[in-house]
């Protein structure tokens, strides 16, 4: 699929919704990708970053480079994993192929956006990200939907490859409508000295979300970080986990999650770290705030060690907002409601993710909007 010249061809409505998932107009980004319903409508890299990164539809990429299929497609996620992966294999309508070229540093974030605008649509996409040797980049992936669209489903397979010495920071913001069924299936393979940082943010009352990305830290001293901020409301079901398999000597995994559950929503936070090689380290941290008696938070940590020098720890705390903190803020002239929302916003503080200032302030704004609604 040929990329169009102008991002302005993306319908205004979609751009407005995209802003809620941190996706903004072209000039502020190193590259943009838009897939709407069943077709890729825009893919391109800002001219300042040509030669540093490539961003195109996956089908176009497979035509352009034979190695895309040979080395990357269905190599991290086996296509026979389950019914969903088979469905994507057989019926996918596109997806993005993003490549950060060897030794390049892309200082401005790249963005990808997958959108649903049709009722009852089942969107199936397949994405590939390759961070080549010693490259560095931030990617914002927004997935969103027109708020009035009902009964839609999104099944997305994303395979990520972080090569020797590369650092990839992927921030994903989900902005689905209330009635959507969402199944992201992802895996990441990290080579020697590579770092993959995933920041996942879901603030909208999606009907049913289940995801469990797996990171294979195959390389020595490779590192994976999974951060997630989950805000469940209006009967949402969020079953969000992550798994790290530490195979490289001295590889490390870190998982940090914050979950806020209210209005009858249910959040399950899973985390599994397997230390299979010497000197591996892992830490898993889950904090949950439960706001009423109709909601539910469950934390399921799993730690596995297979070598003596492995060190994996976890801490979890689930409970209500501290009355002491509320009363304290009320002595500072805040009303009870103001105090609660300040504490909740602080609890979902994105600074744990170490994002660049531009993205960080955008995400903070999104969190503020979501928690005030």
């Amino acid at each position, binding site marked *: 699929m040929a990329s169009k010249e102008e991002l302005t061809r993306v319908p205004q409505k979609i751009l407005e919704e995209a802003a809620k998932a941190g996706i903004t107009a072209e000039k502020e980004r190193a590259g943009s990708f838009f897939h709407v319903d069943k077709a890729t409508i825009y893919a391109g890299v800002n001219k300042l970053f040509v030669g540093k990164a490539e961003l195109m539809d996956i089908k176009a990429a497979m035509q352009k480079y034979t190695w895309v299929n040979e080395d990357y497609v269905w190599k991290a996620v086996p296509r026979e994993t389950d019914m969903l992966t088979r469905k994507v294999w057989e019926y996918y309508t596109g997806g993005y192929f993003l490549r950060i070229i060897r030794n390049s540093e892309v200082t401005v974030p790249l963005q990808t956006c997958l959108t649903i605008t049709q009722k009852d649509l089942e969107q199936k996409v397949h994405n590939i990200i390759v961070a080549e040797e010693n490259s560095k980049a931030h990617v914002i992936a927004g997935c969103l939907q027109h708020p009035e669209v009902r009964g839609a489903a999104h099944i997305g397979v994303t395979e990520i490859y972080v090569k020797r010495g590369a650092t990839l920071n992927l921030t994903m913001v989900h902005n689905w409508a209330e009635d959507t069924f969402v199944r992201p299936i992802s895996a990441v393979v990290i080579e020697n000295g590579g770092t993959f940082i995933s920041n996942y943010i879901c603030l909208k009352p999606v009907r049913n979300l289940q995801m469990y990305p797996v990171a294979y830290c195959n390389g020595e001293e490779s590192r994976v970080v999974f951060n997630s901020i989950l805000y469940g409301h209006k009967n949402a079901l969020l079953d969000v986990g992550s798994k790290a398999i530490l195979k490289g000597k001295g590889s490390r995994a870190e998982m940090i999650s914050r979950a806020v559950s209210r209005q009858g929503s249910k959040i399950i936070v899973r985390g599994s770290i397997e230390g299979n090689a010497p000197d591996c380290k892992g830490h898993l941290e889950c904090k949950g705030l439960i706001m009423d008696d109709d909601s539910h938070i469950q934390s399921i940590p799993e730690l596995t060690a297979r070598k003596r020098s492995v060190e994996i720890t976890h801490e979890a705390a689930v409970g209500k907002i501290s009355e002491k903190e509320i009363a304290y*803020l009320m002595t500072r*002239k805040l009303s009870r409601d103001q105090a609660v929302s300040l504490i909740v916003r602080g609890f979902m503080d994105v600074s744990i993710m170490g994002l660049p200032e531009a993205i960080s302030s955008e995400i903070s704004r999104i969190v503020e909007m979501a928690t005030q609604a």
Partner: protein
Amino acid sequence: MIHMTAADETKLLDGQLTVENLRVKVEGRLILEGVSFNLKSGEIHILFGPNGSGKTTLINAIMGLPGYEIVSGRILFMGEDITQKSVEEKAKMGIAVSFQNPPEIAGVKLADLLKLCLGKSPRDEFSEDEKQLIERFNLTGFLSRSVHVGFSGGEKKRSEILQMLFLKPKVMLLDEPDSGVDVESLKLIAGEIQRYVQNSRGTALIITHKGDIMEHLNAKYGCVLLNGQIYCFSDPKRVYEDIKREGYEGCIKCQQRSIAGW
């Protein structure tokens, strides 16, 4: 129709805050067994008392914090009965507390909390004067950090006193503002409390275990809280000397130094 005696009228005139026969329960146990005093406008008052005597309970009960049940007695603010008012209402009327052990609030920036104390929105900027005061309190480097998370004892105290000054209260209730504080910070904190009380004609009640803070401010009245009651309204330096010499029990035996109206 309430008939007032001449003494009552005097109390109203120079009392910002009057506590009458206050009895307070915490977790079902009676901690304060009838406490009465009157905080004078433009003056600093010192409250001594051994650990566990109920000093913190007194301040928290006046503020109306949850867990402090007022069984009987009244709290009057500028003559108005505020015993049943909520924490938020009392804060908005001008009563402020600085806590001995303030909570840590993860993810809430100190800058945002200070702006809220000033009645600003977190999006607003500090004025030059406000920035200078923050700098004097050595807290400029803490503005973008989470409230009290990883702060030392002294840093927490500086944060508490600065928040209190930004609230511009009429009544300051300070729970051990001097504990864990280094010499220079103590001088700063005490000096700022003194300046504020003098300029605003507000009033302050300071809980302390040590006399050092009195060297840097001009406190006129001191008293001792013991066995759920208040004793010995007098010159705070003399009260402190007596406590050092005779102990708390010994100190309260001498009742003749009461200053009328306290």
